[in-house]
């Protein structure tokens, strides 16, 4: 697989309101190109909304989101996807009635140039594109350990493998940045470990990775940089090791003790 140049993502004072509730409050942070960036926080709402805003499924009420130097605030999710942003969804969605192989092949849809006419005529051009798609799929399936299940219905996969399929499907077209919405939810320790290895590999190929998750130790061990969001506002952002030691972050998660500490 050829290397891609990872995209940079910048959020500048992004705000989103739902009725009277401010879900995202003046959020600013930068994802360095080629890095693995984590987004964590003690409560749910703000982070999920950010994912929707970045990928274009919802429109921000204020602020700018930039992919490299191009503003993508208010741009349709399809256009953002075509600019090189791939994402996974919280609910792992296997495409109904389609095999594991076919799911990955859909991920390669953008590699095709053939329209209706050329597809119907089955000329050498579209046949070549089919061959290339098939070959790329075989390689991806092997890398993600899905070769044996390739011709099973995706919906029949065990949950852990389904998560991996989702990622394989999303990165098939070699996107420049991959956005993952709680990829570790529902996975056990072993599967989470394998997931981390996988994401490091994806990042190694050049793709910028932005992960949102609740499993904090997983995030701190995987990510280069981490941004912490509490009640819709950024409370810390920077190199993972530093953010992990930041007392503000500790306080957000653990609260502050008024009593002294007891020894074991």
């Amino acid at each position, binding site marked *: 697989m050829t290397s891609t140049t990872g995209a940079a993502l910048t959020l500048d004072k992004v705000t989103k309101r739902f009725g009277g509730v401010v879900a995202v409050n003046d959020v600013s942070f930068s994802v360095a190109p080629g890095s693995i960036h984590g987004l964590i926080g003690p409560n749910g709402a703000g982070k999920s909304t950010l994912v929707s805003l970045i990928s274009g499924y919802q429109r921000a009420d204020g602020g700018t989101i930039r992919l490299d130097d191009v503003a993508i605030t208010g741009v349709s999710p*399809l256009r953002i996807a075509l600019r090189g942003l791939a*994402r996974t969804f919280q609910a792992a969605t296997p495409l*109904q009635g389609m095999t594991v192989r076919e799911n990955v*092949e859909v991920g390669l*849809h*953008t590699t095709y140039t053939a329209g*209706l006419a050329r597809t119907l005529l089955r000329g050498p051009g579209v046949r070549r594109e089919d061959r290339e798609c098939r070959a790329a799929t075989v390689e991806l399936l092997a890398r993600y350990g899905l070769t044996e299940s390739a011709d099973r219905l995706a919906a*029949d996969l065990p949950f852990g493998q389904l998560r991996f399929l989702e990622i394989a499907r999303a990165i098939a077209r070699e996107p420049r940045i991959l956005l993952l919405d709680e990829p570790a939810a529902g996975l056990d320790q072993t599967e989470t470990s394998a997931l981390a290895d996988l994401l490091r590999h994806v990042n190694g190929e050049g793709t910028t990775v932005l992960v949102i998750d609740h499993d904090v130790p997983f995030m701190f061990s995987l990510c280069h940089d981490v941004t912490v969001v509490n009640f819709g506002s950024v409370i810390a952002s920077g190199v993972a090791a530093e953010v992990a030691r930041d007392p503000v972050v500790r306080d957000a998660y653990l609260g502050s003790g008024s009593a002294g500490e007891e020894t074991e």
Partner: protein
Amino acid sequence: MIRRTIGIRDASVLGAALVAVIATLLTGSAYWTYALTLIAIYAIAAVGLNVMLGLAGQVSFAQTTFMGIGGYGAARLTATLGWDPWWGLVLPAFGAVAVAVLIGLPLFRLRGHYFAMATFALALGTNSLAVGAVLLTGGSTGIAGVPPLAIAGLSLGTPQGFLIVSWIVLALALAVFFVLSRSHIGRAWRALATSPDVAVSLGVPVLRLKLLALIVAAVMGSVAGSLYAQFSSFVAPDFINLVMIINLFLIVFIGGRGMLSGPVLGAAFVALIPQALSFLGEWQNVVFFVLLLLFMLFLPRGALGFDLSWLRPRPRDSSHPVPERTEAAR
């Protein structure tokens, strides 16, 4: 809609159909020649609907509108203007494509069932138009004297001629369905049928693909309508009324949504079973309705595709099956 198992079922149905056509040509049975021609024409329109409903997962009631364009178009071009019947088959298809784009562009952008509702209104409106626009459509009396196709002066207007032509066109339509369903376009359609959001995230141009499906459906609907006009040698509003669109849905569901041979099996069912049920008189329609419900609920793969997957042992990843709960409830 498992691609692997289609092979046997489709082959059997299409094989049986081919045998039936050949046998009819050899034996010269007038009844079967007529019935099989009608089955083919319905099936062509149903293949179009199968692309929309079975592949792209879009509910569309616009098939009768496209059939109307094909039928009335053919009638006006040939009976009124005296053009060659081949133009009557081909030109209206362009009109149908134009209408498809006109309704698809604005309506496909809307979420939810707006497209389905709008096409339903379109179906009703088309029927009224056929009755009311007397100058265009000849009103309730319709247009008569629609000539059949001819090759090099030799008229194909015999019963056998119509039988052969209609099944050749059906074969073409099925070939188009077959190629498309296995192509990247077919995969993209099936993806957007599950989740347009996921499809979009993969860079699949959902809007364009929905339009493409509608265009394919429009062409097939129009061609079916033109053939119908030439076969009956006249058109009247009846052939595009609500019963027709309901029949098309029945054909697709009973034959097996998304399956290659579905329209053929379904059309045979819808054309032949009423004969068998005619002794029920008015209860025919009730029985039909019940049949449709049963098929939709228990036989998603149609009359010969019992969904036995619930008997298959689910892969055990040490969890017991639990009812679904939405993310919001977490």
